[in-house]
């Protein structure tokens, strides 16, 4: 029954994506409202699905890829609503929601659709660690979406193309502001999530070299880049396209941090007895 809720929500989210793409091609208020209704319902069902699983499980269910990706997708959907409500830029839907849906759909291809039962795991640490990290990363994903919009509008202006999306896309500086919000909001969350993870790992595996782990090292690289971006933003050192390009680089680092465990064995991969040393 729970699984059916999940697949129905996935279907609604997919439908909303199609409607929003149609909205991108043909501007129409009705299409936008339909899309919003679909993603609203789909997102809500996803939330219900995750919550029920969490209640059954007794803690945050993000213990495997299926739940982690879905939780990330849900956060992106929620952030989309926050940003759309805040900035009233309808085209954000076309650039932000597909990123969320990407994780939504990758999750559906995972083999196990129930949370892992593990010994030795602290529900509090798990919740804080994954919660903060994923929220921070969701913020980065949103800033990536706005960065793409920036690049398109930038090209329109620099190469003097005044047809198509020139009229519908917002101003460059407005988009840069949204990107900045994503970076400024996401970085502290990323930091908090990582620190919790370090503290937790140090307590749990105090005599091992847990930090020589590909996922942890990669996360540190991501953190370095975003700390630089954070610094650039608060000190107002770099504005314009170069900042946007760095944000896009950051997006690919974040993306690869999710899939790195596929290629390199890590303590975050479940096959290696995650948390059970």
């Amino acid at each position: 029954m729970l699984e059916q809720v999940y697949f129905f929500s996935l279907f609604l989210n997919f439908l909303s994506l199609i409607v929003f793409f149609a909205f991108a091609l043909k501007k129409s208020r009705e299409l936008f409202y339909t899309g919003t209704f679909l993603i609203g319902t789909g997102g809500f069902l996803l939330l219900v699905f995750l919550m029920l699983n969490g209640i059954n499980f007794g803690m945050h269910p993000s213990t495997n890829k299926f739940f982690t990706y879905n939780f990330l997708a849900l956060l992106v959907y929620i952030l989309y609503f926050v940003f759309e409500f805040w900035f009233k830029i309808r085209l954000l839907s076309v650039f932000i929601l597909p990123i969320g849906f990407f994780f939504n759909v990758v999750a559906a291809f995972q083999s196990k659709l129930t949370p892992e039962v593990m010994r030795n795991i602290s529900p509090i640490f798990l919740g804080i660690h994954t919660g903060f990290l994923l929220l921070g990363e969701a913020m980065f994903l949103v800033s990536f979406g706005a960065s793409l919009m920036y690049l398109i509008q930038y090209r329109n202006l620099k190469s003097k193309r005044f047809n198509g999306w020139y009229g519908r896309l917002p101003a460059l500086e407005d988009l840069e502001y949204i990107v900045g919000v994503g970076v400024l909001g996401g970085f502290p969350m990323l930091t908090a999530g990582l620190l919790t993870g370090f503290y937790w790992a140090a307590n749990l595996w105090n005599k091992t070299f847990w930090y020589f782990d590909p996922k942890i090292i990669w996360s540190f690289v991501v953190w370095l880049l975003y700390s630089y971006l954070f610094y650039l933003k608060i000190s107002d050192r770099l504005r314009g396209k170069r900042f946007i390009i760095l944000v896009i680089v950051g997006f690919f680092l974040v993306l690869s941090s999710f899939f790195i465990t596929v290629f390199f064995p890590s303590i975050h991969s479940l096959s290696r007895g995650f948390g059970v040393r």
Partner: protein
Amino acid sequence: MPVAIIGLNHKTSPVTVREKLSFSMDDIEKEAPELLSKPYIDEVLILSTCNRTEVYFYSEFPQKARVVLEQYFSQRASVEQEKLASYLYFYQEFDAVEHLFRVASGLESMVLGEPQISGQVKDAFEKAIEVGTAKRVFVNLYRHTLQTVKVVRNETEISKNAVSIPFAAVELARKVFGKLDNKRALLVGAGEMCELAALHLKENGVSSIDVVNRTFEKAKNLAEKYNGKPYTFEKLYSVICNVDIVLSSTGSKEPVIVFKKMKDVVKRRAGGSLLIIDIAVPRDVEEDVGDLYNIYLFDIDDLEKVVEANKKKREKEAVVAGEIIRERVSDYLKWCRLQDLNPVIASLRAKAEEIRRAELEKSLKRLKEYPDEVKKELDRLSYSIVNKMLHQPITEFKKVAREERLESKMLHFFKSLFNID
């Protein structure tokens, strides 16, 4: 709904004819009541702008009223009636209302979608109401016109986007900076187009506009006007370091803003975007400047391109607006038909009630001995029979009216059927 319109505009007639038939507000005050006193004309609205003169009227016999108005126009313009007729257009019922809505929404204007015309239509209605030539029909038409203009504005982008060079400059500034509040601009040289653009920038929130000019006096005069500071030409690059928007239009044969110097400016600037709009021919700004980091350079051809693109957009929007308007016209006419019906229905009900009362009284006189319950029951019975009998024809009639099938013949037949006037 016998609303009709007769008039001429910039498409159908030359200015030599239009000027003779133009009405000032004072003319309207004097001549509109005069028109109202002529035969066949029951309500009058005169709309006169530099591109059009139109008389909207309400009449039971629109064709006869048309002849009266043509005679009046011919006398006023001292042009022969046949000759004048070739400049005039005449619409009635649906077409007339559609024309009014299109005019008010700017779809018939020289610059498609321009917003001033709706204000002029509003003024014309207000005047007609003031002098008493607009009565029940036109007051309602006024309300529907305002609503339609609002719907068209909200649901289409007919009046959005710049369609003139100075406004195109503002639009580009908005596309780079978003809000223009607290942005600073610099005017280099003093062309007419540039000054207009500066004025629009100011209206859109730009906080100050500095001026650089070869003659310091001129710079000073202009700077005062725009609440900025005047500078001599030597200071040009150091001033550019501190502004967000540069509007350039000098008479110089050589470029005034060159790549080599601007490279330094980019290094010295605080990092925000710089928008340069070059309206001069020959151009004031070297083309390479547009390749520098965070600089957006547009010349007169680019602005022209913006205008062209926006005009095309407006044409597309005009099609959508036209559809909205046609829907609104049929809504309005439907509403009117129901309004026409109301007095007929009211008098039918009154008549039925009158008959019922008379008959009831007769019977009650004869039934004096009977208890009150019986009398009350008789009252209820008669009331309910009358109502049930009337219910079907009234509903059916309203339905016919809503579906646009109600003809005046039917209305007459209905009236004679029940003997009401």
